[in-house]
Structure formats: structure tokens, C-alpha cells
């Protein structure tokens, strides 16, 4: 098996008495698009800053493609951390040239390609100070792409983009992962974005990784069996009927008035038949589709409680 793209082991960072990142362990395999999720203040950006060597870590080790050297390991990394900043009096292209100069690798062609990839090919020669928030975000992504990185670390890359821009960035990142074989670690609050983009997800809360796996694994693990929402006229009758049905249990009333029922060992059709047999009049029986958002909210609220 090839060397992991990114391994963070025991990553810890404290600010005074507060532990922002607490013994964080993450492993991103080459070719992965890894979603780094967490509520505000969970420690995502601090963890990313530690990984990139922007801030000191109190403990732990970071290896990027097997390299633990604090400087050389960043040869293969392109990064966008929070809101990208530029020398506003320089053109977008000149800002990328500055990055290429510091990366020590890349040329005008690579800059042109990066600008075109993010849709700034036409406006690359205008001062960065004249760019809108969305354009600056795109330019930040272009900057992460120059220097021939193998690993992209992107902190909230769709910040400030409109829905079309978000989709374009998502498609761009998917393309980079698929066609160029780039490994991507992306942190985001937008769970739907992560669900659509990432094959693996890590959820961080209070600086600790509380769940990790593929989106499917996380959703399945947390949904704990199939669930259905049942709409009936007489809720009391439904509750009484459920008591007598093996493998079905009420989870609770939903805001829309329906009752959520967890199934274990029986399927929705069997439940339907048994409820009809018990004289319950069903007006709707809808299988519940769990999303990453459900898993995220359940995990993080459990942590908070």
C-alpha cells in the first residue's frame, strides 16, 4: 500500500488553559477527498493550521507523504486557509506568481491553467483589490493549485460563493481528484457539499475526532437500522399496536405530526401489513433517508450533552 498522503498523530494545541486540538489523529489516503467536519469552534481551522505548520503544535506529529520535515513536507501541499488574502495592488496573476516564487516550482503556463480552472482566465490581469469576495475565493483556490501540489488542504473553499460558484468549485475539486489524482482535505460547514464531494469524512468536536469513515459508513452506523415515518389519524392506536409488533419501536413524534418507527428485523411492507391487521388506518408510510447532516447533528449534540 502506498504512503498515506497525510497522517496527523496526537496533534495537540492549547491556547492558555483551553485545548483547541486534543490528541487528534487523522489519516488521509492518496486519492481521498476527505471532509473535515465540525461545528464552529470545534478546532478544524486550528488543526489545519497545525498541519500546515502555520502555528506551533504542543504535541503530535504530521507526516505528508511520509515526510515529517517541518519545511520540506509542504513541497507537495497547496493550501487555502480561511478567507484568502492578497496583495491588493498586484494583479491576480502577479499574486499567483508570488506564490510560484515561494513554492520554487511552476511557471506561467501553470498559472494560466490555474486561473482558467477557477474561471478567472479573463480577469487575471486586474488588481486583486477589485475582485469580489467570490472571485477572491476562486483566486485563493487557484493559488493553492500552483506549485504542483499532490495534496490540497482547503479550509471552507466555498465561502462567499453563490450556489452556481459552489457547484463549479465542487465540480472542479471532483475533477482534480479524479483526473489529476489529487488528494484533497476539505473542511466545511456545508454538510451537503461534503456529502456530495467527499468519499471519507472525519467529524471533530472540541478538538477531538469523534467519528471517521466513508459517508455511507457514518450514516449507516448512526442510523441504527431502518426507520419509517408513519402518518395516522389515531396516534394512541398506533402506539398500542406498535407494542405488539416485534421488531418495531416508536422513536418519537416528528414535527410534522408523523411518528418515527425504528425497524429491526422487519421491513416497511411487513410493518404496513401488521399495522393494517391491528386496525390502524395509515395515511402515509415513508422510509426515512438519513443524511450526513443527521449523523453530524446527532454526534455533535451527543458530544455537547
Amino acid at each position, binding site marked *: 500500500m502506498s504512503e498515506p498522503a497525510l497522517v496527523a498523530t496526537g496533534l495537540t494545541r492549547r491556547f492558555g488553559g483551553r485545548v483547541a486540538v486534543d490528541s487528534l489523529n487523522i489519516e488521509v489516503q492518496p486519492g481521498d477527498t476527505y471532509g473535515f467536519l465540525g461545528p464552529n469552534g470545534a478546532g478544524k481551522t486550528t488543526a489545519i493550521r497545525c498541519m500546515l505548520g502555520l502555528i506551533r503544535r504542543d504535541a503530535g506529529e504530521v507526516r505528508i507523504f511520509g515526510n515529517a520535515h517541518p*519545511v520540506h513536507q*509542504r513541497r507537495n501541499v497547496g493550501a487555502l486557509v480561511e478567507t484568502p488574502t492578497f496583495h491588493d495592488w498586484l494583479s491576480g496573476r502577479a499574486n499567483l506568481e508570488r506564490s510560484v516564487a515561494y513554492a520554487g516550482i511552476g511557471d506561467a503556463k501553470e498559472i494560466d491553467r490555474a486561473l482558467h480552472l477557477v474561471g478567472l482566465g479573463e480577469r487575471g490581469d486586474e488588481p486583486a483589490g477589485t475582485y469580489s469576495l467570490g472571485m477572491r475565493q476562486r483566486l485563493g483556490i487557484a493559488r493553492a493549485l500552483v506549485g504542483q501540489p499532490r495534496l490540497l488542504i482547503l479550509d471552507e473553499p466555498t465561502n462567499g460563493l453563490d450556489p452556481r460558484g459552489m457547484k463549479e468549485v465542487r465540480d472542479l475539486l471532483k475533477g482534480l481528484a479524479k483526473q489529476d489524482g489529487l488528494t484533497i482535505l476539505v473542511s466545511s460547514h456545508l454538510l451537503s457539499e461534503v456529502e456530495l464531494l467527499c468519499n471519507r469524512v472525519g467529524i471533530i468536536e472540541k478538538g477531538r475526532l469523534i467519528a471517521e469513515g466513508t459517508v455511507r459508513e457514518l450514516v449507516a452506523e448512526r442510523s441504527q437500522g431502518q426507520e419509517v415515518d408513519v402518518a395516522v389519524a389515531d396516534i394512541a392506536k398506533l402506539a398500542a399496536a406498535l407494542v405488539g409488533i416485534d421488531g418495531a419501536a416508536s422513536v418519537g413524534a416528528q414535527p410534522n405530526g408523523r411518528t418515527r418507527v425504528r425497524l429491526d428485523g422487519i421491513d416497511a411492507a411487513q410493518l404496513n401489513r401488521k399495522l393494517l391487521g391491528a386496525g390502524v388506518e395509515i395515511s402515509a408510510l415513508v422510509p426515512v433517508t438519513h443524511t450526513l447532516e443527521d449523523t453530524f447533528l446527532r454526534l455533535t449534540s451527543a458530544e455537547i450533552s
Partner: protein
Amino acid sequence: MFPRHIGWMIRAEIRAVFGRISAKVAIGFGIMIPVVAALALAWFEQKTVDSRFNGVPISDLADLSVRGLLGYGLMVRNMVVLPLLLVLATAASVAGERRDNTLREVVVRPVPRWSIVFAKAVALLCLSGCTLLLTMGLSLGLGWALFDTTEAIDRVLLGYLVCLGTDLGLICLSMLASSFVRSVGGVVVLIVLLMLGDLAARGVLTLAGNLGAEGMLSLIPYFPGSALDAWEGWKDGFSMEQMVGLACLVLAGFGLTSLRFTRMDVP
């Protein structure tokens, strides 16, 4: 040691430094100073043909030669404006980039942090060199066109060269100050306070020397404030002590800034 692409880094920093308003104003002053000095001397020469001050012809009080123009240009340059602009340019390049988070974008690249400090220092030294060359070149041109050319100018030209060194000292000191504060104004205030402290310390040493502790007087040239005046040696001879003080200032400024940079968080 150095990243292989240090030349690219320096070029990128030169582009950034010269794009700032502080650099444009500094270059403007570099041009303006010799022109104004030449015009003033020419006017002085015309007006003072028969005037005397305490019995001495006024034309004898002013050095109306190429050497004089070069010297006055250097003196006016180093009075307040250019050093202040150099401090501002340095503060914008270091403290300003820390404040604006543009420093983060280069720190994230695979280069040691001290090499970023080095690239910035060289770029700022290029700005200093550019203003010096402009002042010197224009002074020479205008001086040869307007004034006496018989006076030797080698010492004053050496003064320009030493001024490049004193500018480097000021840049390193400003970089060090910039590693402690994030605002450009804060750096200027810190430098002013440092210089006032230096002046006070030298005053105390002078007083102690005058009261009999003569060894104290020999320490004064090593102080940063004295070292930064080393360019003035073109008039009465350059002082080795000041040069040593300047070298210490450059090394300490660069070294401590690099150390600070290596250890600081760049969020």
C-alpha cells in the same frame, strides 16, 4: 542552507515592496532631494556673491561644489523623511503582512521562515539602494552641470555606500520591531521609542564620561543610534567602532527577527 529559489523569492518581494505607496514616495523623495538641493545651492550662489556673515563671505560657508551637493543630498535624505519611509516600508512588508494575513500565504510554502525574512530584507535594501542611487546620480549630474567639479568626491561617495549599510541596520531594527507588533504605526512608535531610549542611554554615558568615567565614552559609538549615523563619517573620517556597532545591529536585528519568525504563530 538557502532555498534554491531564493532569487525568485527576492524578486517577488521586490515587486511587492516597490508596489507600495511608501516605496513610491521614497523614490519620489530620492529624486526630489538632489533637485531641490541643487536649486537651493544655485540660488544661494547667486544671492551671496558679496554677502558676508561675521566677516566671512557667505559663499565660503556653503560648499558650492559637486561634493557639496552630494553631501547636502545625503544629509537631507537622512534627516527624517527617508529613514521614516524606510521604516514604514519595512513595517508594511512585515507587520502589515502579518496583520493582513498575506504573510500566511508565503509561510505555508516550503521555505524556512528565516529565508522569508532574508528575501524581505534584500528587497527593502534594494529600495534603499534605489533611492540612494537616484539621489547620488542626480546630485552628480546636476552638480557637474552647475557647480565646481574640482573637489574630490571619493569620500562622499563612500558615505553613500556606508549609508546603504546604515539603511540595512534600520531595516533590520524595523523588522525586529515588526515581529512584535502588527500595526505599521505601532512599529514607527516602537522605533521612535527605541531611538529615544538609545539617545537617553548615550546621554547618560556622556554624562558619566564627563564626570570622570572615561571608559563609558568609548561605548557610545557602538550604540544603535551612533551606528545608524556612520554615514556621516564622510566629513571627518569613518569610525571603526560605529562600523562594528552597525554590523552588530544588522546581525542582531536579522538574527532575532528570524528567531521570532521561526517561533511565531502565523494564524
